C-alpha cells in the first residue's frame, strides 16, 4: 500500500507542475514545485516563483526559463510522446521553426506545427527494425568472416613457420658454403696456379673431358646415358635441389630416352660446357671420385657461384618472412575479422597500404585514415578517411572530396556490425 501512495503522490505533483512549467523533463520537476520562490538550479539566486517562465532570464544558468527563449544558455525539453524526447536550445523556442515533433516548442509563433511524433516514431521503429535485421544478418556474416579470418590467420602463421624452417635450413647451408669458399680462397692463396687451358672450368673434381663427363653420367656403364641417369646427375643451375622432370631430361637427351657418346659430344656436352641452364650435380662421393681432388681456379669460382645462389635464396626467404610478419602485425581487429579485406579492391583503390584505425575510443574500428598518399596537384598529399558502417555486404557506398585531395569514403561491411547496437534499440514514451 505504501508503494501505491508514492505512485499517487508523484502523479499528483506531475499533474500540478506540468500544467504550469513548460519545457522541463519529469526528472527536473522536483526543482519546480510551486512555492513562493524559486531557487536557480545552480543555487545562485532566489527569485519569486512568478518569474519562472515569465520570458525574462533571471538565473545565470538559465534554469528559471525552461519554457521560453529568454535565457541564452537555456534548454527546452521536447516530450515528444510517441517518439524520442530530447532537449533543444532555448533559442529554438518560438522561432517559427518546428523543432519538437510534438510542436511544443512553437506555442507562441506563426509557425503551424503539426504533431508528427507518432509518424516519426513509426518511421523510426520501422527503420530501427530494418537496422536490427541488417545487424542480425550482418553479425552472422561477421561471424563467418571471423571464422574465415581465423583460418586465414592460422594458414598464414603456418606459412610463416614453414618459411622460417626453410630459412633455417638455408642458413645452415649458407654457413657450409661460406666455409667452403673460405677454404677455396685459402688454398688459392697457398698454391697459386695459372688457370688451366681447356674445358676444366665447369666441373668440380672431374676429368673435364668429353669422355670423362660421359662416363660420369653413364652410371651403369652401358655406353649410353638414360633419363634416369640424367635425372640423377644433372641439375638446373638456378635450382640445384630440384630433380629434373622426365620431360626435361628427355629434352636434354635431344628428345630421346638415351644418348651415346657421339651424340653427347655434339649436344649435351655443349650445353653443359657453355654454362647454360644445367650443370652436373655437385656430387658428394659420387662414383669415380675417390679422393678430394686438388682445388683449381674453376673450383673457387664454382664455390663463389654457389655461395651467391644460396645467399640469394636466403635473402628471398627472409624477405618473404618479413613481408608476412608485417602483414600479420597489422591490426585486423580483435578477431582478425578485417583480414579478409587485405589486398581487396573496392572500386577506388587509392592506396596499397593498410591505413590507421582512428575511430573514437568506443568504436575504434569505425574509421580508418590513410595519409601521405599520392602528391596532390597543388602541393600536399592525398588523404582518405574511410568510415565503416554495418551492412550485409562489403561495398563502398560513397566517395566524397570535401576539400581538394581529401577524400571521405563510406564503406559498408558486416564486419563493422557491433552487437552493442542491439542493446540500444528505441526508447519511446508511449
Amino acid at each position: 500500500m505504501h508503494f501505491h501512495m508514492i505512485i499517487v503522490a508523484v502523479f499528483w505533483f506531475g499533474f500540478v507542475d506540468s500544467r504550469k512549467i513548460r519545457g522541463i523533463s519529469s526528472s527536473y520537476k522536483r526543482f519546480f514545485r510551486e512555492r513562493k520562490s524559486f531557487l536557480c538550479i545552480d543555487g545562485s539566486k532566489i527569485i519569486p516563483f512568478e518569474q519562472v517562465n515569465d520570458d525574462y532570464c533571471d538565473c545565470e544558468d538559465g534554469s528559471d526559463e525552461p519554457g521560453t527563449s529568454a535565457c541564452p544558455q537555456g534548454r527546452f525539453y521536447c516530450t515528444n510522446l510517441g517518439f524520442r524526447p530530447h532537449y533543444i536550445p532555448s533559442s529554438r523556442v518560438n522561432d517559427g521553426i518546428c523543432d519538437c515533433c510534438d510542436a511544443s516548442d512553437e506555442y507562441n509563433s506563426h509557425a503551424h506545427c503539426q504533431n508528427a511524433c507518432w509518424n516519426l516514431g513509426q518511421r523510426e521503429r520501422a527503420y530501427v527494425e530494418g537496422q536490427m535485421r541488417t545487424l542480425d544478418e550482418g553479425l552472422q556474416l561477421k561471424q563467418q568472416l571471423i571464422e574465415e579470418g581465423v583460418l586465414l590467420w592460422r594458414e598464414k602463421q603456418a606459412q610463416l613457420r614453414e618459411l622460417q624452417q626453410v630459412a633455417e635450413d638455408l642458413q645452415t647451408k649458407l654457413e657450409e658454403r661460406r666455409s667452403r669458399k673460405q677454404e677455396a680462397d685459402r688454398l688459392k692463396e697457398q698454391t697459386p696456379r695459372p688457370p688451366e687451358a681447356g674445358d676444366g672450368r665447369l666441373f668440380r673434381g672431374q676429368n673435364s673431358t668429353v669422355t670423362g663427363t660421359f662416363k660420369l653420367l653413364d652410371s651403369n656403364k652401358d655406353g649410353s646415358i638414360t633419363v634416369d641417369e640424367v635425372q640423377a646427375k644433372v641439375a638446373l643451375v638456378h635450382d640445384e635441389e630440384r630433380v629434373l622432370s622426365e620431360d626435361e631430361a628427355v629434352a636434354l637427351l635431344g628428345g630421346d630416352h638415351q644418348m651415346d657418346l657421339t651424340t653427347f659430344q655434339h649436344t649435351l656436352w655443349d650445353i653443359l660446357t657453355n654454362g647454360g641452364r644445367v650443370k652436373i650435380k655437385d656430387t658428394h662421393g659420387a662414383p669415380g671420385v675417390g679422393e678430394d681432388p686438388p682445388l683449381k681456379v674453376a673450383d673457387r669460382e664454382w664455390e663463389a657461384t654457389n655461395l651467391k645462389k644460396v645467399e640469394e635464396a636466403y635473402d628471398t626467404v627472409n624477405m618473404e618472412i618479413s613481408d608476412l610478419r608485417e602483414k600479420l602485425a597489422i591490426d585486423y581487429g580483435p578477431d582478425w575479422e578485417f583480414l579478409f579485406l587485405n589486398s581487396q579492391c573496392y572500386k577506388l583503390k587509392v592506396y596499397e597500404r593498410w591505413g590507421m584505425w582512428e575511430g573514437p575510443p568506443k568504436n575504434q574500428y569505425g574509421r580508418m585514415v590513410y595519409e601521405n598518399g599520392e602528391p596532390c596537384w597543388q602541393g600536399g598529399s592525398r588523404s582518405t578517411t574511410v568510415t565503416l558502417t554495418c551492412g550485409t555486404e562489403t561495398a563502398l557506398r560513397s566517395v566524397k572530396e570535401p576539400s581538394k585531395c581529401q577524400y571521405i569514403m563510406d564503406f559498408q561491411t558486416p564486419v563493422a556490425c557491433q552487437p552493442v547496437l542491439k542493446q540500444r534499440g528505441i526508447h519511446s514514451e508511449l
Partner: protein
Amino acid sequence: MATFTGSMAPVLVLWLAMSLSGTWAVDKGNFKTCDQSAFCKRQRALKPGDSPYRALLETMELTNTRLTLQLINDNNKVRLLLELYRLQGNMTRVKINELKPLKPRFEVPDVLITEPSTEPLSLLSQDENGVVLSLGTESQRVIISARPFRLDIMEGPEVLMSLNSRGLLAFEHLRMRKDTWFSKGPPGCTSSKEEEKVDGMWEETFKSHSDSKPNGPSAISLDFSLPGVEHVYGIPEHADTLRLKTTDNGDPYRLYNLDVFQYELYNPMALYGAVPVMLAHKAQRTTGIFWLNAAETWVDISSNTAGKTVFGKMLDYVQGSSETPQTDVRWISESGIIDVFIMLGPTPKDVFSQYASLTGTQSFPPLAAVGYHQCRWNYNDQEDVASVDAGFDEHDIPYDYIWLDIEHTDGKRYFTWDSHKFASPKEMLQALEDKKRKMVAIVDPHIKVDSNYKIHNEIRNKGFYIKNKDGGDYEGWCWPGSAGYPDFTRPDMRAWWASMFAYDQYEGTAENLYTWNDMNEPSVFNGPEVTMHKDAVHGAWEHRDVHNLYGLYVQMATAEGQIQRSGGVERPFVLTRAFFAGSQRYGAVWTGDNAAEWDHLKVSIPMCLSLGLVGISFCGADVGGFFKSPSTELLVRWYQTGAYQPFFRAHAHLDTPRREPWLFGPENTALIRDVVRQRYTLLPYWYQQFYHAYRTGEPIMRPLWVEYPQDPATFVWFDVHTFQKHNGAQSLYIPVTMSSIPVFQRGGSIIPRKMRVRRSSSCMTHDPYTLYVALNLQRTAEGELYIDDGHTFNYEKKEFIHRRLSFAKNMLSSVNLATDAEFSTGSWIERIVILGASKPSKVTLKTADGQESQLEFDFDASMSVLTLRKPGVNAGLDWNVMLQ
C-alpha cells in the same frame, strides 16, 4: 555537361598552371606601370609650370545657373569650353571639354542619380585679368584668372582649393591621324610619325597585346591644390593605408578595374574597383573631389610637408616663417572629358551628404544580408550544403546565407545548375527556407560561347555582346573557356539581363536565392592586364571610355533583376567585386581575392574604411583569407574582426582544406561561435546603421576623424564585454586573450541589441530588445532604434518605426522620429543596461497611456552598471523610465 573543345582546353590549363603554380605574389609584370601606359607617361612628363591655357574672358556667358568660358591653348590654338556650376549643397562643378571636338567625347552616364540642381551664380567683379563670382552663401567666391588660366575657390580670405594652379591642365584634342599638332604641353612641340609611334599615341603594345587606338591620343589631366591640407583619403580600391601617400617617388595611384591575381599590399596598383573620389581633411574643414571619368585614371599626390618630421613641422610653426602645409593632387585620365565635382564640406558629414546627393546612398540591404555568410569555393553538392547547414545547428552558430561558387553551374554556364551535384535546387532552397536561411549563387558576366546554351544564343542573336575592333563579337578566355561579354552599357541589354532572373527564366530558383557578381572588371584571362582590350567596342564608344563602369552596370542589372522577379516588393542582395562611383546603390562589395595572412587581415580595415568614405559602406573582406590556409589563431582573429565589419562572409579557395567554424577543436569553435553571436546580438544596431547610411550617405565603418573632426578628448568609453570604463584622451594598452575583442561603446551612446541569438536573423524578428545606455560625463546618452519588416521596400512607403532614445536628467525616453511612418512590431523592451550609472532608489516606467509602474533593477556597484528588469513595453511605442 561541360566539355572543353580540343582547342580551348590547353589554353585554359596553361593559364591555370601559370596562375596557380608559382610563388605567392602578384606578378607585377602583368600590370602596367605609369611608364608602360602611354598616356600616363606622356602626361606625367609634364612638369608644373606656366599653363599654356588662357581664359578668353570675352567669350564668358553667365546665366543664372551656369558660367561658360572658352580656354585656348596658346601652343596649338585648340579651344576648350569651360562650364562652371554652383550646385545645391555647397558644391561646385567644373566641366571642361573641347569646344569643337572632332567627334563627341565620352561623358559618363548613369552614375549621377539625377542632373544635379544648380544654385544661382553672380558676378562680383571682372577685369582683364579675371573674373570673381559669388558662390552664394558663406562669402564663397570663385576667382577665374585669365592668363594663365586658373580657378581659386575661396571662403572669406581662405583659399579652399585651386585648379590648374600648377599648370597641369592638359587636354589631348581629338585629331585626324595625319595631324601633326600635339597638345603635349611644352611649347612648340611638333613631331614626326615615328615619334607618334614611340609615344603610343596611335598604337600601343603591352606584352603581346596591341591596342589599336583608332581615335589617337585623348588624355586629360588637371591639378588641384589644397592649402592647409596634410591628409587626403579615398580613391579606392587600393590595398594600402587609409591615409594616402605621396606618389613623388613612385607610381601614381591607379584606378583601373583589374582582376589582380594574389594582390600585393601597400602599393598604389589598381585593383578590382575604382571610385574616383578623394577627401581632403584638416581640422576645420573637409572637402572632396569627385572626378567623374570612367577611363583608366592615375592620381598623383604630393605634399610640401611629406618629407618633414614632426619636429620639423613644429620648428616651422614656432618660427612662423614657413609656408602653410599643402597637398597637391593631379588627376590623369585616358579619355573622356574633365567633369569634376568639388565638394566643399565643411564637415566630413557634409561631404558625405554632398557626394550622396550626386551618386546616391548605400542601398538598404535586407536585414539577413547583415548577418553572417558562409561561403567556399565550392560547396560541392546538395548533400554538402545540407551537411554544412546542419553543422551550424549542431554547433549552435547562426548564419543567414550559404554561398555557391562557380562549380554549382553546368560547366560554368551561369543561370544553370550542375544536374548531378544540384539535381533539385528548389528542394535545397526549400530546406534552407525551412530554417529561414538563404543562399547566394554566383552569376558572372562572361558567357560561355556554346550554341547549346540559351543565354549565349539569346545574347548573340540580340547582338548584345561587346564587339571587337573588327566588328565581331568580342571573345576572351574565362572560367568556361571561350566566353563573350554582354554589353552592360546598353539599357536594353541590362533590361534583358534583369529579366533572366525571373523565376520562370532562371530555373531552380526561389525567393531565398540571391546573387554574386564576380569577375566583372571584366576579367579576361587572355586579355591585356587580364581584362578587356581597350579597343573593344560598346556601340559608339570604346571599351577604353567605359571600362571602370562595366562592373557597376553588371551589378545594377542584376539587382534590378532581383527586384523585378518579386514584382518590386523585395529588396535585392547582390555582391560585386568590381565597382565604380555609384555602386553603393546596388549592394555589397568585397575586397576580392585576399590571402590568409595577418597583413591581409590588417589591410581589410583601411580598405573598407576607404570604401566607406566614398559612399560604399557595405564592404567586407573574405574572412579567413581566400588564398592559402589560415592558422587557427588567424582564422579566429579574422572572425573577430569580420564580425565588426559591415559585410561578414567567410570564403576559401578551392585548393584549401575545409574551414567551417567547427573544424578546429571545441575551444576554437566556441570562440568563433561567440563572436558570430556577438554579431547577431548587434544586428539591430547594424541595421539602424545601414538605414542611417541609406538615408545620409555617411559611412558605417568610419575613421575616427570622421566622427571627431577636431579630436575632442572628453569622452569616456566602455568595454562592451566587461563594462570597464576608460576615460578618453589617453593611450591605453588593452591586454587581450584569444577570446577578447577590444570593442568599446562611447559614453553618450545608446545601442539596441537582441540578446536571443537564434539560427538566423529572420528567426529573431519578433525578439525583444536590450538597450545598452552608456552615459557620458554629462550623464546623457542618445541613440536610435529602427525597425521594419527587414526585407521589402515597404520602408519607402513609410512602413517602419524610427525612434530616438535619449537619456538626460535621469530619464530615458523613447520618442518617435518619424511621425508620418507606421509599422507595428511584436518586439518589446526586455532589459535596459545603463553603464556609468549610480544606484537609484526607485525606477518608474511610464507608458504612452500614462500608466506608471515600478521596475525591478539590479545594480553592480563595482562596475556602476544598472540593469532594469523587463520594462516589457512595446518597442514601437512612446515610453520613459525615470531613475529616482
